[in-house]
């Protein structure tokens, strides 16, 4: 905890607050006595691509849960675009604010076609009655077509999502996030279980996306993180252990200890 403070002193965080898209300060959460997050603080600037790494149990997924409103923190602030307090909102509100989340396990609507998956993710019309009387507009159709090409699934548009390969499901899920037109994308282990070529494609995809959106990627795979070529935050036991370029972080003795010393 004190180590985290050294790297990112409070004052610095606060001064940075003005121009952040995501601002996490002093967040702690406990599950039945287990401290999953311990005074976690970091921020992401608009348009930034950020990788978050850390060993198992470092609190990566819990952090995602808190940002997206699935879990409420015991203490701490989570601000979106320096003004909206995310800890007060639920998942749907947060999604509609413009934060998209991709799960660790690919989660798509298996009984729907690829096209319908994207249609459902398409921004706007979240109300019940709007959905009941919704008709597909040409603008929406064009948007879906565009995304189908971005995620390399144009060929599979009429296929049921259940019949896609693991990697394709991951892409579809990323595509669904794009359809939401988020300002911030949270991506949890996008390349888990992917082949090497798929991994490369995915890195390319994320880099493309990062040109338009702010993206936070949680990942184990060091090669993939290197491919992303971005700032890295290392989590350990619920706090930030180190932050910086990957090369720099990898030389940090504490990071080495956490990764190799056990």
């Amino acid at each position, binding site marked *: 905890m004190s180590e985290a403070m050294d790297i990112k002193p409070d004052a610095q965080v606060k001064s940075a607050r003005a121009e952040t898209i995501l601002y996490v300060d002093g967040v702690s959460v406990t599950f039945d006595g287990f401290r999953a997050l311990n005074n976690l603080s970091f921020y992401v600037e608009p348009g930034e691509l950020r990788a978050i790494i850390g060993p198992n149990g470092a609190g990566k997924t819990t952090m995602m849960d808190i940002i*997206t409103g*699935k879990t409420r923190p015991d203490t701490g602030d989570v601000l979106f675009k320096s003004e909206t307090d995310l800890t007060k909102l*639920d*998942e*749907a509100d947060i*999604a*509609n604010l413009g934060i*998209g*989340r991709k*799960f660790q396990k690919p*989660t*798509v*609507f*298996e*009984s*729907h076609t690829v*096209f*319908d998956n994207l*249609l*459902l*993710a398409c*921004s706007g*019309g*979240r*109300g*019940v009655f709007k*959905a*009941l*009387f*919704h*008709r*597909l507009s040409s603008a929406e*159709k064009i948007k879906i077509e565009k995304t189908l090409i971005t995620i390399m699934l144009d060929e599979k548009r*009429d296929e*049921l999502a259940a*019949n896609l390969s693991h990697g394709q499901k991951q892409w579809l899920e990323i595509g*669904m996030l794009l359809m*939401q037109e988020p300002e911030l994308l949270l991506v949890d282990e996008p390349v888990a279980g992917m082949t090497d070529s798929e991994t490369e494609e995915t890195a390319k995809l994320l880099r493309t996306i990062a040109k338009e959106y702010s993206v936070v990627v949680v990942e184990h795979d060091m090669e993939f993180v290197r491919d992303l070529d971005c700032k890295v935050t290392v989590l350990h036991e619920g706090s930030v252990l180190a932050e910086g370029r990957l090369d720099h972080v990898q030389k940090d003795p504490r990071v080495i200890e956490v990764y190799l010393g056990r």
Partner: protein
Amino acid sequence: MTDYSQKYQMTPVVGWLLKDRGGMILLTILIAAAILVPIGNLLVPETSSFHVPTWMLSLLGKYLCYALLALSVDLIWGFCGILSLGHGAFFALGGYAMGMYLMRQIGDRGVYGNPELPDFMVFLNWTELPWYWYGFDMFWFAIVMAMFVPGLLAFVFGFLAFRSRVTGVYLSIITQAMTYALLLAFFRNDMGFGGNNGLTDFKDLLGYSLQSDGTRAGLFVASCVFLGICYIVARGITQSRLGKVLIAIRDAESRVRFTGYRVEYYKLFVFTISAVMAGIAGALYVPQVGIINPGEFAPALSIEIVIWVAVGGRGTLYGAVLGAFIVNYAKTFFTGVMPDFWLFFLGGLFIAVTLLLPKGVIGAVPAFGAPDRQSILSSMRKRLSAGGKA
């Protein structure tokens, strides 16, 4: 199935209805039945082999009400994954609303001859009509209540349950608790709904005697019409973007949430609509069977509805209708021929359908079958290997 511009820009209702093969068959049968069965009953002489006896007309009318009830369950279970084990409660509430109207229609023809109070209230030495019986002397009011009361209960119950994200078996168990609580409540004489005996000895509906063949035929036609209308409404819902959201909720609820949909509102909407349909089914059922009592709230009956849906084929709507007919015909058959075997059969059906026919009878017909057409064996093998905790 390839041209999306066509698929999504077609004139709404007629467009998807024409594409819905099972639905078209169902609606055709319903229209044919609504015309031919009453003719066969009222106009064809009894000596003719085409004559439809009145008992059969009533029986079919009863099945139609069950079919509507099954449809309402399929709408939430098949399309939204909400397994309600308390839908009998909405059915019974609709039935009681209609029963109250029919009670008031008896007027002074009851045993005690009280023009205001139903017999059971006179028997309990009540002197005044309870406030909640006001208005039930008007047919339109009873009909509105038959839909409003189940709808309101579903809305309140659903609001509480879905808002706090009670899902899966937990939801099933509390719906069961709900109908059980209502069962106990309606057994009480103090409730003012006739207690144990319920409401019965009805005389007439809108001035037409319930005993006459004409009235019965009219009720039969009404059942066909309402089943048809509710089918179209349900199909319309499932075809819309809302329907796609419902299916998405069934398959991956949290994904839907993170996509920005308020899952609880969607569930609440479809749950309430479904309860209203169940209420309508109950209201049509009571004049045709001539009685409504607390037994309709029994949790066991509510579970039975689910098996109608499962037998026919979950998530197809017309499958639910088919299932209701198959199971209830079997019930009529067994209770008539060998009553001891009915529970063996019903129990076996529950087991066999869940194990061997997860898509129901409809799923076994290739023309309506699942897109991946798995054989029973391979699907069982798949399930075995997928065995484990979800």
